[in-house]
């Protein structure tokens, strides 16, 4: 019987897919380093772990970046059975992600003279305020697994921006998200807030993943394939038996991705997670997650469902407008520095969406440039927030920053530069970026594009008020009684802050080369 049935079930020919190992080498290096990092956690002596992990992580990331640069010339390929597309935008975003990861790890490694990373709790699993935690603190424990976790997240992000089918995209989404949920809960101070943020981020992230997965399923039902190219072909052919599945599928999948960039109304997690997470993690998360998620959005929108854009474009445009307005307006009444930057990041997500909706290769290059500019400034800004302390813990309330410009002219000066970039003042990267993102929307976006740009400019004006008020606070307000000081950063943090600040200036004054690069790589491999 069994034997008789055998022929009826045709033996599934399992063919090993061809892998272009060179094209995926950077990802392999990152995930390999992460695995070694796990082994280090298991076997290396506790006191040496911080140094080993930081060194290992940096070496892995730099190696991955070098390899990426080497292969970027002639290894454009759709590989792994069509699930990964290593093309111009993917390589550009992967390079950006690796740089942000390097800068992020540099800021996370800050010890301020202690034995372990200052930002992370000695024991993440202990109940806040429990004897176990105090004991871990006394013993000088460290959560050095934060570094392998970061690498896993980076691996997920690298995959996310290159994923060419919905299943790979979903896997990548989860791979990048789960380490971030954990990292969010590892703050050394204000443990309860940190854990609460972690839990909320996880719950809402799971919720949004479900939307994405549902959307992916509907699209599979529509096209009979999860491959983006196949979906695009099915839309163009227009002969699907399940026509009604397309629109909900596109919208739900996009919403899953828009959650990651903090678009309104899927933004609620952002302020809470940004505030609760260890500050260097917030910087890394804000910069890198945005890059990864916008990479995936670009790919889904431009490669997969571009042909049906007229049906869903207005919906996303409405989300973009809402995002800009709510982000800008809510940043006005914030009193916490990290929450303020969280709302600022929401507004920026709206600005970037305007560029995405141009549906032109100039829009792609504008978005790529914007992501670089925003990420550099953001990592440096959060690195500076981590320096400003009152009695050992971070002084994140705005009032505590009063008069900082007099006490610490250099730190405050750099922060002002970054704020000017966020506001989009000329001669900083922010201006060039906004121009690069808005110009295609005006040129190719039609009436909706122009309206979005008008809203974007008005929202920029509102956020500019917020940033300038901060500048006034730092330079023209008497310091409060608190003994707020800016700690002296280590070499590592100094490098990260310097790179962020110098990059902000260079991208503002001579943006030509990077703009040109972004333009050269703006074509997706179909």
């Amino acid at each position, binding site marked *: 019987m069994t034997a008789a049935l055998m022929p009826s079930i045709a033996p599934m020919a399992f063919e090993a897919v061809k892998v272009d190992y060179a094209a995926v080498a950077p990802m392999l290096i990152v995930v390999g380093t992460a695995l070694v990092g796990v082994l280090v956690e298991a076997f290396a002596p506790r006191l040496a772990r911080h140094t080993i992990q930081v060194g290992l992580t940096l070496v892995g990331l730099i190696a991955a970046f070098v390899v990426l640069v080497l292969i970027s010339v002639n290894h454009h390929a759709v590989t792994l059975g069509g699930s990964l597309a290593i093309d111009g935008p993917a390589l550009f975003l992967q390079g950006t992600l690796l740089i942000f990861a390097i800068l992020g790890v540099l800021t996370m490694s800050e010890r301020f003279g202690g034995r372990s990373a200052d930002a992370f709790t000695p024991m993440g699993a202990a109940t806040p305020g429990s004897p176990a935690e105090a004991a871990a603190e006394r013993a000088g424990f460290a959560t050095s697994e934060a570094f392998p976790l970061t690498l896993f997240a980076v691996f997920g992000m690298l995959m996310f921006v290159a994923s060419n089918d919905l299943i790979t995209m979903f896997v990548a989404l989860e791979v990048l998200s789960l380490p971030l949920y954990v990292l969010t809960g590892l703050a050394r101070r204000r443990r309860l807030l940190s854990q609460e943020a972690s*839990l*909320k981020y996880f*719950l*809402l992230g799971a*919720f*949004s993943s479900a*939307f994405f997965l549902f959307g992916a399923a509907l699209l599979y039902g529509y096209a009979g394939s999860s491959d983006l190219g196949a979906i695009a072909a099915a839309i163009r052919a227009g002969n699907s038996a399940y026509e009604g599945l397309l*629109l*909900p599928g596109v*919208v*739900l999948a996009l*919403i899953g991705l828009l*959650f990651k960039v903090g678009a*309104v*109304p*899927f933004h*609620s*997690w952002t*302020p*809470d997670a940004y505030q609760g997470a260890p500050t260097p993690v917030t910087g890394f998360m804000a910069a890198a997650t945005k890059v990864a998620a916008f990479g995936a959005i670009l790919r889904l929108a431009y490669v997969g469902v571009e042909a049906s854009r007229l*049906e*869903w474009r*207005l*919906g996303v445009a*409405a*989300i973009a407008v809402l995002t800009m307005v*709510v982000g800008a*307006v*809510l*940043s*006005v*009444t914030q009193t916490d520095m990290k929450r303020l930057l969280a709302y600022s990041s929401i507004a920026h997500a709206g600005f970037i969406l305007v560029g995405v909706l141009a549906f032109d290769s100039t829009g792609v290059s504008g978005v790529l440039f914007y992501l670089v500019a925003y990420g550099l400034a953001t990592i440096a800004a959060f690195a500076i927030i981590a320096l400003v302390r009152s009695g050992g813990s971070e002084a994140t309330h705005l009032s505590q920053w009063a008069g900082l410009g007099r006490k610490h002219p250099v730190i405050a000066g750099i922060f002002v530069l970054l704020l000017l970039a966020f506001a989009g003042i000329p001669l900083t990267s922010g201006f060039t970026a906004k121009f690069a993102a808005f110009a295609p929307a005006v040129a190719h976006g039609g009436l909706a594009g122009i309206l979005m740009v008008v809203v974007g400019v008005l929202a920029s004006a*509102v956020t500019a*008020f917020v940033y300038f008020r901060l500048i006034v606070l730092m330079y023209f307000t008497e310091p409060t009684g608190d003994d707020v000081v800016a700690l002296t950063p280590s070499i590592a943090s100094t490098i990260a802050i310097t790179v962020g600040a110098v990059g902000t200036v260079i991208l503002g004054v001579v943006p030509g080369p990077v703009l040109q690069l972004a333009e050269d790589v703006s074509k997706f491999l179909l």
Partner: protein
Amino acid sequence: MNTYALLAAEGEVAAATGITAYAWLLVLLPLLGAAILLLGGKATDAWGHLLATALSWGSFVLGFVIWIAMIGRGAEERPAHVGGWNWVPAGQFQLETGLLIDQLSVAFVLLITFVGSLIHVYSIGYMEHDVDRRKFFAYLNLFVASMLLLVLADSYLLLFVGWEGVGLASYLLIGFWNHNPAYATAANKAFFVNRVGDVGMSIAIMFMFFTFGSVDFATVHAAAPEAGSTAMTALGLLLLIGACAKSAQFPLQSWLGDAMAGPTPVSALIHAATMVTAGVYLIVRSHAIFNAAPNAQLAVAIVGAITLLYGAIVGCAKDDIKKALAASTMSQIGYMMLAAGLGPVGYAFAIFHLITHGFFKAGMFLGAGSVMHGMKDRVDMRGFGGLSKYMKITWITFGLGWLAILGVPPFSGYWSKDGIIESAFIGEGWRPWVFGGIAMLGAGITAFYMSRLFFMTFHGKERWVDEHEDAERGVHPHESPLTMTVPMIVLAVGSGLLGLVLSFGDTFTHWLEPLVGGHGDEHPVLAVPVIIGLTLLLVAGGAFYAWMLYVRDAVPVTAPRGSLVTQAARADLYQDAINEGLFMRPGIHLTRALVFTDGKGVDGVAGSIAASIGGLSSRLRRLQTGYARSYALTMLTGVVAVLGALWVMN
């Protein structure tokens, strides 16, 4: 390539060669001095004033050599052009900048650097004990550099840079002792009045660019005769506004008297010899424009005539020695303006009088400074008298200046002023009679008030108390040190002889003739000997009347109430009251109205927008409850809304 380069290529204005090619050093040397003194700070306190003086002399020597080189060339080859540096490359507007060294600018260079350097030397003595001596010399150097730039510029725009530079130096030096609020106010007043003139100048420059597409002298002057008299009249009047403010001419004269708040060497250099004459330079330099606009030219002459009398009348009533001299300066520049307004017959005399006036008026200001030095910085002439015994050198040098300004032959002023009076009598219709009459009458009044000043100070009864009798209020008149008297002596020699030397064989007028044109065959409506005779008669009468009042009769120590005219003259003919009533009060009301509109209207709108955004922000903030369940609900609502909306639309 600008027009000078073009002309140079055609051989009209030669590119400078030899020593003349270094003319830019003229400006650079004093500018360097100012920079070193200002940036060097206290390190230069000990020797800064000597460096500044040396650099100023350096400029003079260079200017002198350039002048000698120019004499060596034929009259047509004398103008030379240095530079051609691309200054403003702005699309269609290309401005190459350079220096123009011709007969006119060289005359100014010599006057500015020579008198300027003498005054530097004088200031070494005068400012010896001032704590801010270094700053004073830095500003003096800055002034010399700016003034040289003003006269050497080859375009109106570069001239304007020098114009503003001298304005800045003047402002800084009038308010040099700004710990005294009255002096600071005087500096502000000069600043504000000059802004009025600057507006005129700026618009004039824009107008030039609009009309000719260029602002350099060569292009503008070449095109002016063909540009139409309406446009040229407008341009001329705009330039006149600038000239009036800088040269303290009616109706923008009010600042000069108050500018005497500055240290006396400053009054001598800036507010007598050089800067205030920049307006005359501007008019003469722009002669092509004014020749093409007879109406503007007439306006210049009228302004000059009015100011001439205005200054003279005010000068008769002032008891403050410096203010009396300031009024006299205003009046003498009125003479120059009048001459410049007469056209080609007057240009050379305007500049001639400007040069001689630079010497004798600077000499008298230095003399006044020397008197103040010996009289505990007092300026009220009613408290002087009989000082000739105590300050011999000051008395003699001042006396030479006095004879020169009166126009007594053969002293300097006679040659230049007489030339102006004679020129004023040239013409047809009512003009020669009015202008000539005013110029002649002015000479008589000048004789009266300058003699009054001279006699009240140096002659008559001693009206001061000796230090030995009253240590508190007493003074001890004494001669000033050599650093002060030597410059006075040199300037006195100039006051005595310069006019004779320069008018010998009409040297100076011939010198300028190729540039500005000269006398034709015109003859005054009165015979020349009659004019000279009448003038000298009026001068003698004025001087004699002064002698009667201030030497023969006793001078009251406190000023008598005087007639209505005297009271008006003492109050500067109510210039401040008029300015306040006409401009300041309406201006203040306008400002108040604007502030009110801005506060209630513009700010109100902006404020309410900000408030509504803030309100919206506070309300939206309540949605951020902190509960994961409400966040999830928000997301779900969003999803449903987007899906629903798109479903409905499609």
